[in-house]
C-alpha cells in the first residue's frame, strides 16, 4: 500500500518537472528495499506555477559545450587569418570578425560578435541545495542570501574592530590618529555593480543600508585593519584630463618650438600654428586679427586661452579658418589655440584648463526647421477658430 502510494506520488512528480524526478530517483536508489511512509499533503503543494518559474535556462553542460565550440572556433579563425592559434587574443578575434563580416549597422550590439560564452550568457545561480534538499548557504531562507551574508560579514568586521579597540584601551595604547584609508579618487560601487557581483537583485534601500554600514566601518579609528575589504567596494575614478590627446611639439629649422592644432565650432573649421617666438602677433587667413575680427568679443575669445595660462606675449599665432560666421570662427580658433597650448603647459594646468571649459568642444549646432512651423521653434500664428 505504501509502495503504490509512493509510485503514485512519483508519477505526479514526473509530470511536474525534472527536479522532483531527479531528487526522487536518487533517493529511491539509496534505499531500495525499505517501504516508504505515506505522505498526507495538500495537492496544491504539488502543482507548480510553470509559467512563473521557468526551468534553469542554460544547464552547465550546455555552457561547457559552448565554451568548447568557442575554443575550436577560435583556432579555426586564427588559421583562416593566417595567424598563430596559440597567441590569438580577443582583440585579434574582434579584428578578424570585423574584417570577415563587415557590417554597416549603427547599433554596435547588433553587429556580429564572437566572445567567450561567459560574457554572452548571463551568470546564473546553480541549484542551491544538496541531494537531501538541505540548502548550502545558511541564509538561504532569507531569499537574498549573498546580500545578507555580506551584511553579516561587514557587521562581524565592525565587532572585530571594536574588540581590537577595547584591547588597545585595556593596554593603554589607544590612539585616535591611526593610519586612515585613502578614499580620494575613488567612489563607492554603484547598485548595479554590486548586483552584478552578488548575482542577486537588491533594492535601493538595501543598497543604502550597505553603504551606511561601510561608512560606519570607515568611521572607526582602527578601520585600516579592514582596508583590503573596504577597497573591494570602491572603484577608482579615472583622471579626466588624461584623456586628451596633446599635439606633438615640433621644432622648425631655426630651433623654435611650435605646435599645430585644429578646432571646430558650428560649421567653422580652424587650424592654428602656435610658435614660441615671443612677440604676441596673431595672423588669421593672412590678415592681422584686428582687421579680421573688428568686433571686440571675437578678439577676446582669441585672447582667453593665453590669458588663462598667463602666456600672453610669448607666442606667435598663425591661423586659417573657413566656414560659418565670425562668432563661430572665433570660437573654433579659441578651441584650436587651447589644444595647441596643451603641449606647452604642465599637467596641473591641463586639468585647470579642462575645468575652465577651454578644452570642451561646443556641441551646439543649428537646429533644423520643422514642417508646419516657421522655423526651428517659431510657429505660425495661432488662430483660435
Amino acid at each position: 500500500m505504501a509502495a503504490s502510494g509512493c509510485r503514485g506520488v512519483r508519477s505526479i512528480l514526473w509530470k511536474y518537472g525534472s527536479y522532483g524526478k531527479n531528487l526522487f530517483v536518487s533517493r529511491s536508489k539509496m534505499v531500495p528495499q525499505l517501504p516508504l511512509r505515506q505522505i498526507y499533503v495538500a495537492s496544491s503543494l504539488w502543482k507548480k506555477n510553470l509559467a512563473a518559474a521557468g526551468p534553469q535556462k542554460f544547464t552547465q553542460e550546455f555552457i561547457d559545450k559552448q565554451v568548447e565550440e568557442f575554443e575550436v572556433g577560435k583556432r579555426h579563425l586564427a588559421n583562416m587569418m593566417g595567424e598563430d592559434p596559440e597567441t590569438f587574443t580577443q582583440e585579434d578575434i574582434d579584428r578578424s570578425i570585423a574584417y570577415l563580416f563587415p557590417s554597416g549597422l549603427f547599433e554596435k550590439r547588433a553587429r556580429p560578435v564572437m566572445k567567450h560564452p561567459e560574457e554572452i550568457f548571463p551568470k546564473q545561480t546553480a541549484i542551491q541545495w544538496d541531494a537531501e534538499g538541505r540548502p548550502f548557504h545558511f541564509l538561504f531562507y532569507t531569499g537574498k542570501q549573498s546580500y545578507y551574508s555580506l551584511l553579516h560579514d561587514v557587521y562581524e568586521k565592525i565587532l572585530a574592530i571594536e574588540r581590537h579597540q577595547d584591547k588597545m584601551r585595556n593596554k593603554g595604547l589607544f590612539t585616535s590618529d591611526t593610519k586612515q584609508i585613502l578614499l580620494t579618487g575613488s567612489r563607492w560601487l554603484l547598485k548595479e555593480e554590486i548586483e552584478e557581483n552578488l548575482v542577486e537583485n537588491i533594492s535601493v534601500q538595501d543598497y543604502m543600508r550597505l553603504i551606511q554600514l561601510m561608512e560606519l566601518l570607515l568611521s572607526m579609528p582602527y578601520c585600516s585593519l579592514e582596508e583590503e575589504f573596504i577597497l573591494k567596494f570602491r572603484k577608482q575614478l579615472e583622471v579626466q584630463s588624461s584623456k586628451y590627446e596633446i599635439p606633438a611639439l615640433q621644432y622648425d629649422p631655426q630651433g623654435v618650438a611650435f605646435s599645430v592644432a585644429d578646432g571646430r565650432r558650428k560649421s567653422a573649421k580652424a587650424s592654428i600654428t602656435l610658435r614660441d617666438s615671443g612677440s604676441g602677433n596673431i595672423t588669421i587667413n593672412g590678415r592681422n586679427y584686428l582687421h579680421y575680427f573688428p568686433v571686440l568679443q571675437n578678439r577676446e575669445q582669441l585672447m582667453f586661452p593665453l590669458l588663462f595660462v598667463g602666456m600672453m606675449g610669448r607666442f606667435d599665432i598663425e591661423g586659417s579658418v573657413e566656414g560659418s560666421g565670425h562668432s563661430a570662427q572665433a570660437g573654433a580658433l579659441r578651441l584650436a589655440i587651447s589644444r595647441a597650448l596643451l603641449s606647452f603647459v604642465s599637467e596641473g594646468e591641463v586639468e585647470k584648463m579642462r575645468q575652465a571649459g577651454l578644452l570642451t568642444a561646443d556641441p551646439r549646432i543649428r537646429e533644423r526647421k520643422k514642417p508646419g512651423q516657421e522655423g526651428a521653434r517659431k510657429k505660425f500664428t495661432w488662430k483660435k477658430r
Partner: protein
Amino acid sequence: MAAGVLTGVRQVLRGPRLVSAVFSCHGQTFSSAAAAPDTGETKILNFPLTQPDYFRLSELFTLKDLFEARVHLGHKKGCRHRLMEPYLFGSRLDTDIIDLEQTAEHLQRALNFTAHVAYRGGIILFVSRRRQFGHLIETTARECGEYAHTRYWKGGLLTNASIQYSPGVRLPDLILFFSTLNNVFQQHVGIRDAAKMNIPTVGIVDSNCNPSLITYPVPGNDDTPVAMEMYCRLFKMTINRAKDKRRQMELLKGISASV
C-alpha cells in the same frame, strides 16, 4: 492547563503515521527501518516523543542557571498578554515574573523536540526580528550547521515557496523563534505561516507575546542579552548533541542517512 494540552498533543503524536505527518509534509518521504527488529534505535525513530529525555538534555541547564540569566523577568503589568497569565508566577513592583518551574519543563520539552528533529536530519530555521541579537543568532545557526532568518520576512517565504525560491525547494522542518514579536510589536508573520504549512514551531514567549499558535512555547525573557546568549548556547548544544549521536549511530549500526 497548558501542560495538560501538551501531553494530549504528545499522545496524539504517538502513532507512526502521524509522526510522519508532522515531519514529512514537504515533499520528502522518510523510510523507517521497520524490517529490522525493534531495537532501541528503531524505537527512537518510530516513537520518539514517548521517551522524555533520550538525549539527556536536562543536564544542560538548571533552574539556578535560568534565574541567573534573568529568564524570569517579564515586561510590565500593562504589557501583559492575557494568554500568558498561566505561565506567570506573579508580579513584583509592576514587573511580571515568569514561573521558572514551568519554563524549565517547557524548555526541556522544546529542547527534546529540537534534538529529535536534528537527529533525523531536519532543517531547523532560527528566526528573530530583534536587531540587537540578529548577529548572535545568525552565528549560532551557522555554527550548528542550520539556517537563520533574522531579516525582513517577505510575504510568501513559506506559503509561496515554490515561486519565491525554486520549484523543488525543501521547507524547514522546525522553526525556532527567539522572539515572537517583530519590530512593531506585532506577532511575527512566520508563526502564522508555519501553522499554515504544518511546520512545528518552538518559541520563546515573553509576557507580552501570544503563545497560542506556537507548538512548543517556552515562557521566558527575550530582551536581556544574557538570556538570549543562554538560549542560543542551549539550542546549539542540543543540536550538536543530536547530530553527533546520529553520526555515532550511523557508524555503529549502519542506518542510512536518508532517515
